[in-house]
């Protein structure tokens, strides 16, 4: 059965084109995906991301549990409110999901995982949590609104009580704080500054309406996808899955091989690293007209690869993509578009940060 967020009727009233996403009926766009994209890059836009799963972990051994569960090291989180991006791996080093974890107290950590992986994530977390006596609570009572863009923080701050506003203004990047019944995190999935706000369902529509009145543009999953790809951020299921290790998904920076920490998947990752990782994720830019798409073949002198996420970049005005190619590939390549080989450049990503094209793109 298709699930609805508490904002579903609000999206429909705004004229959104709705699509199924991971079993949820979600807004694809509210008219023009490209205008929504530009609104986030240039001003402020917001996304209903209530379909994502918020999981609270309670127990004295929660930190020890997460040390074991995540490929990134939870001990990087020393201050309450601080967030960490990590992969959760299986025994063969494949990615079960990518997520954000917040350290709140030694007895309480909060994890936000993807919607499409909800069932298997919860099953995996619950199974692994048993040995640590950690209580796993899904927070289906919470909604989430991401407000992103150069003016996003100021527009949110103006709606907060003086005390909470003070806290929100001082909030560092990748840190969260409580206030006005909201959980306000300075995180996002667009490459712009902003907040991701976790809000009780009963308050979500009211908050959304206040943000609209404050001039924040509603933006759909279409814009969210072009924004995150420009920003060089992976999409689970498209850029990596359970058959792909973080080494092959451009996520080495999220793996912490710190001494003596026995996390799930570590042995497999070390083995693959020692043997040499055969494939790498790279960025592609196409200077010719056209659009790069998922599944297109990438031809390099070192062998063929494949496009994972591909799109038209509204900020750059040309096609960009992530591709998985032989690890030795670099420089130029070609992509098979409907039987025609079109030249592309292999580049370092992100493609866009803080509204501007990155060097070399």
């Amino acid at each position, binding site marked *: 059965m298709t699930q609805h967020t508490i904002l579903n009727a609000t999206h429909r009233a705004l004229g959104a*084109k709705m699509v199924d996403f991971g079993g949820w009926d979600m807004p*694809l*766009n509210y008219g*023009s*995906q*490209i205008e929504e994209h530009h609104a986030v890059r240039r001003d402020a836009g917001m996304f209903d991301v209530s379909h994502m799963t918020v999981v609270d972990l309670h127990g004295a051994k929660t930190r020890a549990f997460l040390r074991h569960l995540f490929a990134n090291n939870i001990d990087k989180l020393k201050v309450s409110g601080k967030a960490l991006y990590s992969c959760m791996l299986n025994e063969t080093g494949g990615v079960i999901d990518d997520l954000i974890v917040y350290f709140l107290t030694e007895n309480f950590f909060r994890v936000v995982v993807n919607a499409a992986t909800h069932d298997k994530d919860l099953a995996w977390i619950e199974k692994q949590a048993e040995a640590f006596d950690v209580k796993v609570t899904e927070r289906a009572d919470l909604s989430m609104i991401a407000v992103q863009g150069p003016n996003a923080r100021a527009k949110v701050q103006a709606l907060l009580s003086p005390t909470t506003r003070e806290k929100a203004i001082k909030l560092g990047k990748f840190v969260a704080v409580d206030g006005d019944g909201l959980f306000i995190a300075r995180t996002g999935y667009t490459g712009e500054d902003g907040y991701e706000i976790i809000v009780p369902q009963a308050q979500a529509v009211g908050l959304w309406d206040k943000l609209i009145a404050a001039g924040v543009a509603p933006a759909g999953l*279409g814009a969210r996808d*072009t924004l995150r790809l420009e920003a060089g951020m992976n999409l689970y299921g498209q850029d990596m899955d359970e058959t792909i290790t973080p080494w092959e998904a451009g996520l080495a920076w999220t793996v912490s091989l710190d001494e003596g920490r026995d996390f799930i998947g570590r042995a497999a990752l070390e083995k693959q690293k020692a043997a040499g990782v055969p494939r790498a994720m790279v960025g592609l830019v196409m200077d010719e*007209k*056209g*659009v790069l*798409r998922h599944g297109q073949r990438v031809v390099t002198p070192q062998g063929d690869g494949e496009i994972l996420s591909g*799109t*038209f970049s*509204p900020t750059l005005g040309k096609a960009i993509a992530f591709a998985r190619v032989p690890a030795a590939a670099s420089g130029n390549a070609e992509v098979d578009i*409907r039987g025609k080989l079109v030249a592309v450049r292999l580049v370092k990503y992100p493609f866009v940060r803080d509204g501007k094209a990155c060097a070399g793109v």
Partner: protein
Amino acid sequence: MNEIPGDLKFMKSHEWARVEDNGTVTIGISDHAQGLLGDLVYVELPAVGDEVQAGNACAVVESVKAASDVYAPISGKVMAVNSALADKPETINEDAYGEGWIYVVKPTNLAEESEELLDPDAYAELIESEEH
């Protein structure tokens, strides 16, 4: 909702054809189709001089979201293409039945093939039924 001009004929796959006074046929995609595709960012045009066969793919329209084939409603030789779409593919979003035309053919089997096409009322009914 845009009015559908009365002089057009449609394929079920949302292409339109208009017979011009000089006997050529102009081809495009419907306003409904552009709405389904969303913001268009690329159009792959046929080449002038190509022989296109009714029912075959002869152009591609790409939105941010997806690539979609354009099928030839009418067989014939391509006489002109709308090369302005190369730089402004969004013209199809803005004016699907006018400035957003895609190409023109000199038809080879017009009478027979146009009978296979839907008139505006039948096409309006089709998209109505697709929406429910």
